[in-house]
């Protein structure tokens, strides 16, 4: 399927998905409730079989932004080499979306990283733990309200001396 056919298929299934294009890249905005179904449709029917990346953007200080977070899924088609970006606006205090680990095994660590850095929960994830930061860490450092120099975690990090261990 080409991009145009894919967009038509998406629009047929989900009433109003906004899509845009910038420098040759097609982006689709899918609301959180239809995100999983849209991704499933893209994977199983439209040939977008490669999950390239899952990432997130915190729009807290972005001019003109309405929602707090944008969850971004980058997909690719290994047959036609086309790419598609799916973006989902999230605005809850404790945002949560359905995990896509069942669709792509690659989502496992990517979703853990998004949870680690942004605090977005993925329902149905088999092992949603922090991945890069220690489990004791309480903040979500890539959120825009987290300062660049941290909140003293580094300074107050517990050190185990040889005698105590």
């Amino acid at each position: 399927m080409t991009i145009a056919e894919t967009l038509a298929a998406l629009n047929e299934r989900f009433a109003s998905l906004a899509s845009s294009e910038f420098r040759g890249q097609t982006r689709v905005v899918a609301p959180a409730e239809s995100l999983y179904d849209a991704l499933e449709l893209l994977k199983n029917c439209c040939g977008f079989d490669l999950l390239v990346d899952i990432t997130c953007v915190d729009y807290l200080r972005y001019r003109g932004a309405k929602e707090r977070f944008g969850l971004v899924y980058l997909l690719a088609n290994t047959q036609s080499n086309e790419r598609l970006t799916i973006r989902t606006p999230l605005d809850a205090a404790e945002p949560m979306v359905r995990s896509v680990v069942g669709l792509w095994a690659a989502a496992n660590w990517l979703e853990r990283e998004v949870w680690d850095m942004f605090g977005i929960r993925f329902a149905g994830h088999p092992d949603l733990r922090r991945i890069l930061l220690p489990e004791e860490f309480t903040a979500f450092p890539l959120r825009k309200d987290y300062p660049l120099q941290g909140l003293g975690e580094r300074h107050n990090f517990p050190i185990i001396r040889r005698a105590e261990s």
Partner: protein
Amino acid sequence: MPLTRSLFAEDLAQDEAQPYLWTLNFGPQHPATHTTLRLVLKLDGERVVDVIPDIGYLHSGFEKLGESLNYNQYVTVTDRMNYISPMANNVAWHMAVEKLMGIEVPRRCQYIRVIIAELSRLTDHLLCLGAMGLDLGAFTHFIYAFNPRETIYDIFEALCGARFTNSYTRVGGVMRDITPEVIQMIRGLLAEMPGVLHDMERLLARNRIFVDRTQGVGLLTREEAINYGCSGPVARASGLTRDLRRDEPYLAYADFDFKVCCAREGDCLARYRVRMAEMWESIKIIEQALENLPAGPVNVGPGARTILPPKGAVFSTIEGLISHFELVMTNRGFEVPCEEVYLATEAPNGELGFYIVGDGTQTAYRARCRPPSFIHFALFPHLIRGHTLSDVVAVLGSLNIIAAELDR
């Protein structure tokens, strides 16, 4: 760093049910992990039943830094991601920035970027294969592979003044044009490389011990490679013929004649062979790029207000000083749209991409790096389950995990 609580609970519950299993801690400071990563292996005698990778030891907040450094400054941080092939990261970062700003770099610059990207592919594959042999007991092979890396670093030093952390690219061009001396050095390297590759092949490709330890180890099928999001040599060794240089030609790759190297087997030996074959193709690409290196300007002209002028011009001419300040002063600078782009390049390790959100200022609002090592290391438990403890280093070596890129 203690094991996380949830892991402990899981471990204890399993241990009670299966008292014959024992747990082995591998890393974070182990020579065969190359860098700081840790594996908690569950063993049944010699056999690996399960493995829990524990990463994050080198996490340094590169993506957070990207939100406070401007588009030219951040290139120094990309050097430190995959420090085995920093030039490839430089190229990827600035290509993404140029895509965001809509800048088209001149042909000569594209060719130079292709040359340095392919040179860094050579350094990356040489180190990966050398270290893979080293882990499996072939020390001599490592020395043979490491030697030409020295020549390549000399080339980088002559080109940009730094050996490891090059920071060579700029928005709209490169730091400095390539000189005839550097071209001479690259030609010398190209003359030397076939001999090196033949030596490496003769040492290892048919070596009984090496083949026995890699053949059929760490099997990955094509479907699994797609499902796990693999790219680069790892995916190509499993029969997924995807190479962004051919499939989404960027820079000047459409001009060159090269093959996409693939294998069907999907084991460690296939990954070794694909990397080995890719080096021959890289040599071909560099040769063609040097032959056809276009004349003309290397950077976007100063009128386009995108490239910093050479330092000599800044210090000695008023025009240079003005165009310098036009870019670095806080109320001047690049014209950045409030948009989001993703650009992927075929880095030595796989698909290296940057997702950049511009907000009109001189600093990226979000600079996400899509690191191939991260995606490939997630695959590791799947590859090693059922193999023996000694296969851990074989699989780890064949995936070429760079922890600085893994953790960022």
